[in-house]
């Protein structure tokens, strides 16, 4: 349906929206302007950059998938079940957001490190140590990114009309079927938003990753780590690397979101 009068954004919305765009986009423009573009070509062909970029994308995507698999059910439990202590749980889940990522990395060691609560048992029985592996990158990014998904999906679930779930129940759908076939599609835009947030957060993750996974080119060195190192020696290179990361994520988001949101429901 065409919705008329759409061009007309009211001024009290337009002015802050323009300010917001300026505020978020101008710094990027600044970076683009300042970047030593002449270096760009030579930098892009460096195999280390390609490696780091590939690793970043793979790890962030895996972390997002893991966040979806674990986080969407958690959001559902927070929004829909009548468990006691839900509000405490909700706050607890939010809290990792506040943790300085480096401390988050330390905390991950305490659980999943070779001497950690779970990790020591794992190490003793299988000889497998998680830290300093590519898997550790994914775990660190998931730890940092999942709360974003949980909180935004929970918000979407709360806003969704629960009566459709009643209707599904009268049609014989158990809660799981209802979840899959009704709830999930209805909150698809919220999940998409949450996934974008998680992915972006995971892609930009630095502190927890460098702590928990280390900084090994090819295995655990993601773009933000590469940027960090570049900052040590050649800040301009760091800017170029950041812009590469930005460009790739911009392209990905443009491709992905439009396709995803295209499928979402418009009531």
């Amino acid at each position: 349906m065409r919705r008329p009068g759409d061009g007309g954004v009211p001024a009290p919305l337009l002015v802050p929206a323009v300010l917001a765009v300026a505020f978020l986009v101008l710094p990027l423009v600044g970076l683009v302007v300042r970047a030593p573009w002449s270096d760009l070509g030579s930098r892009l062909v460096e195999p280390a950059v390609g490696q780091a970029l590939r690793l970043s994308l793979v790890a962030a995507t895996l972390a997002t998938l893991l966040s979806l698999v674990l986080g969407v059910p958690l959001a559902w439990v927070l929004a829909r079940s009548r468990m006691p202590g839900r509000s405490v749980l909700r706050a607890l889940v939010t809290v990792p957001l506040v943790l300085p990522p480096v401390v988050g990395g330390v905390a991950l060691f305490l659980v999943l490190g070779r001497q950690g609560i779970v990790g020591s048992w794992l190490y003793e029985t299988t000889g497998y140590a998680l830290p300093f592996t590519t898997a550790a990158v994914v775990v660190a990014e998931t730890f940092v990114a999942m709360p974003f998904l949980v909180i935004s999906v929970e918000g979407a679930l709360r806003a969704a009309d629960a009566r459709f779930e009643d209707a599904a129940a009268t049609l014989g759908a158990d809660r799981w079927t209802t979840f899959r076939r009704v709830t999930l599609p209805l909150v698809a835009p919220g999940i998409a938003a949450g996934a974008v947030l998680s992915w972006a957060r995971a892609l930009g993750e630095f502190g927890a990753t460098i702590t928990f996974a280390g900084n090994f080119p090819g295995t655990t060195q993601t773009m933000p780590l590469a940027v960090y190192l570049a900052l040590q020696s050649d800040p301009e290179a760091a800017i170029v690397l950041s812009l590469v990361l930005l460009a790739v994520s911009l392209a990905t988001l443009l491709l992905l979101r439009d396709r995803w949101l295209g499928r979402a429901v418009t009531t």
Partner: protein
Amino acid sequence: MTLDARLTVQRGGLTVAVELAVADGEVLAVLGPNGAGKSTVLRVLAGLLRPDAGRVVVDGDQLWDAAGVHVPAHRRSLGMVFQDHLLFPHLSATENVAFGLRARGMPRARARAAAAGWLDRVGLGDLGERRPGQLSGGQAQRAALARALVGDPRVLLLDEPLSSLDARTRLTVRAELHRHLAEYRGSAVLVTHDPVDAMALAGRVLVVEDGRIVQAGTPAEVARRPRTDYVARLVGLVLLPGTGSGTSVALEGGGTVAVAEEVTGPVFAVIRPESVALYLERPAGSPRNVWPLRLVSATPHGSVVRCDLAGEVPLTADVTATSFAELGLAPGAAVWASVKASEVAVHTR
């Protein structure tokens, strides 16, 4: 399959306390004014709302009782039409109708075929691919009806399933529903505001007012002997509660009505609107019941005009369009109404 329920539930100040039993293959119509608690009863029967007390039994299976038994909605084998349809906005009409079959494990292709068949039966054969947002109000209601009927559930709960249909579609869908219900072996509860629906579809009628049952019986019984003003108006009669003594009834609202037989004690005097004659001046003649009244509103109704009258004895009169035109009445006009005593039916309260 028998549905047997007794339930009490608090709903925003109103206490709904209802008992009902629907035998195998029977259709129970629930009638009642807005806010009487009809939808509330359906929600309880569906398991979407827990009552405060009572029990819900289907076919001997306890679905809910105060002791803690609660079979959730999805295990009750229901077919339900919600008053506001609640079609899934992200699914096409066919997918909506097939939803219940799929949820109960039918393979996709078979479910879609069955859904398409039902959409056809409600006249939506060519709109199966539409999303609910792309259907008109009446089309959406028919899709909701098809969705409720398709699975051959044990219990059918239909909340005003025909209210948005146009007159012609209503006829055909009602006929379709009638055909289906005639063969249907479960219990069906139909909430409706249309007495024609109730008469055409239901074997028994339950009238709910203010959360309680005020009358129950076959449609004919209820129509013949209405026990509340609501029912009387529903079936197009005027109901005047009063106290009989001899051949006259002293009305509760004031005034008396002369009747043909001797009556005593609390009774209802029932007057058919067709039996009320209107005059511009006080008629001199045999009818013993003559009242000066005021015309409140006049609405054409087929070939007659239905006149609502206010005064000592509030009446409704049906007069032919011709005579109405001859009387030259306008709302607010003063008229005389007369009813022959032999036209007043009386039944005890």
